[in-house]
């Protein structure tokens, strides 16, 4: 029996539900309603409304990716320094929130951030001025960091755990202090995990419409919101597909980054 035949169902499934659908997006993206070829859908990214949405999306996802990295790296380092046995349970504790419905968790942030919500309640009992938190770009960034932080922690943690303790010991032995060990040994060796984490946070943050909807109110439009509305409310699928193609350029860039820096798939999250 030829084992390769076992991939038959998988290949048919992937062609039917991954390749053809993506081809359809390209097809819709470069045609108009009547079916004739046009680049108008793609070019419409340069209109003020769309360009502004894309720019804001890039900005917010960039900031939240950076924040995730800043928060996750020390966390992964601490988890590594605590060893595997204890580490594995703590790691579970850190990914446990992912089991909760992500819409509900984000909605709970609404409750915390609202004008007369929990945080402002605490501030007023401390006789501090209340803050305008909800429906701001800051609230969206918080939602992104909150939802995607585990996707940054896990790949970095996994890569750090694979580094032999004796490699760190050897660097110490050769005279490196803790900071030099971090800069010269741990950081370069954890690049695959960092790159994988960055793409795993950046892509969903760039394309989200849910977080902006729940925490940003109706006034802040991200590119994800624009595309979603074209499909559900505006029903201009051609325009939505064209804008998706623009988004896919950024996704392709991050896939290329992974291919370059994580050749052996060391930086996987799962």
């Amino acid at each position, binding site marked *: 029996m030829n084992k390769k035949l076992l991939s038959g169902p998988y290949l048919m499934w992937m062609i039917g539900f991954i390749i053809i659908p993506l081809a359809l997006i390209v097809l819709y993206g470069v045609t108009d309603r009547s079916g004739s070829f046009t680049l108008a859908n793609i070019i419409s990214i340069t209109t003020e409304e769309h360009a502004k949405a894309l720019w804001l999306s890039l900005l917010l996802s960039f900031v939240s990716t950076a924040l995730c990295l800043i928060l996750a790296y020390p966390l992964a380092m601490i988890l590594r320094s605590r060893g595997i046995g204890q580490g594995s349970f703590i790691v579970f504790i850190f990914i446990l929130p992912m089991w909760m419905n992500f819409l509900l968790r984000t909605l709970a942030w609404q409750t915390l951030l609202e004008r007369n919500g929990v945080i402002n309640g605490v501030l007023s009992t401390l006789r501090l001025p209340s803050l305008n938190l909800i429906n701001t770009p800051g609230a969206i960034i918080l939602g992104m960091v909150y939802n995607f932080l585990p996707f940054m922690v896990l790949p970095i943690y996994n890569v750090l755990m694979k580094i*032999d303790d*004796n*490699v760190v*010991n*050897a*660097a*110490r*032995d*050769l*005279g*490196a*202090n803790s900071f*030099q060990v971090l800069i*010269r*040994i741990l950081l*370069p*060796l954890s690049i695959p995990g960092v790159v994988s984490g960055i793409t795993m946070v950046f892509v969903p943050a760039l394309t989200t419409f849910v977080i902006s909807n729940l925490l940003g109110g109706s006034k802040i439009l991200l590119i994800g919101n624009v595309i979603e509305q074209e499909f559900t409310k505006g029903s201009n699928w051609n325009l939505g597909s064209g804008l998706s193609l623009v988004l896919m350029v950024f996704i392709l860039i991050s896939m290329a980054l992974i291919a370059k820096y994580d050749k052996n798939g060391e930086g996987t999250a799962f």
Partner: protein
Amino acid sequence: MGQPLIDLRNITKSFDGTMVLDDLNLSVKENTFVTLLGPSGCGKTTTLRIIGGFERPGKGQVIFDGQDITNLPPNKRQLNTVFQKYALFNHMSIAENIAFGLKIKNKPKPYIQDKIKYALKLVNLDGFENRSVSSLSGGQQQRIAIARAIVNEPRVLLLDEPLGALDLKLRQDMQYELIRLKNELGITFIYVTHDQEEALTMSDTIVVMNQGYIQQMGSPENIYNEPENAFVADFIGESNIVPGIMLRDELVDIFGAKFACVDKGFGINKPVDVVIRPEDIDLVSPDQGSIAGVVTHLIFKGVHYEMEVMTPDGFEWLVHSTDMFPVGQNVGIHVDPFDIQIMNKPASEDEEAVGINE
């Protein structure tokens, strides 16, 4: 010269409540090759890691050149380690690996370049500067790990089973390399291994360890020829350990037969353990030996024949000889007096371990 370079004083270490080292004392002189030898779990690697600074002893002091370095982190110690699986930095070239310690110390560039060249020459890998770690064989990686350590001109080089991952032929070659390196560099080597042959070949001093205690310390000849207890005798080479009774000075009774020996001071009619190496037994005709027996096994080993001789008491003597005696032949066993090593019987297993440690 008289003062030891490294002095371990009353070192105690336990992991999760299990005692690994118990009140260990060890002095290492400058410019010697010292081997810590013992089975896995005997505490030899822990001892090395305490000297290297990767473990802190629970109690006791580490003295280096007269200074207490017990709490000094590894990066501040004047010694370097060669790790068991080399622990090379995969993200750096060979040259960068070797230069690592020198760059940390901000040495000038030309100096570093010279040192890299010198070190690669020393380990017979000239021209390997720009190769990647993954392109090297195990033996080559081992040499780079050594080169990376010695460019820092440590006064002591610690080696943790450095040849463990290599195959036999390569291991033997590297043993000679290490001896040559030690002589050329004129520094102290502290070497950890479980391989007694390796220890006998390379060391000036062997420290035999078991269960966290030092069992015996001495030159290879001393350890091999005059083991102080059954553990050392058994661990270093093959041996026949038989119960005996010391009739008086220089005469021992084994299974009712009298053997002349050279040991004194054990008392009269005192039960002892007797160690006789297989190659020290001469097989003669039955009436000429001290005990008669019959050959029960015979194997050709290349250099010699390995035979087992059963004596009437049921003990099977292991004998190595270049003369061949076929299975079933009656033979006599003869041992020269100076080839017989007498040891006190341990009162208990615990005493066996502690007795040597004063």
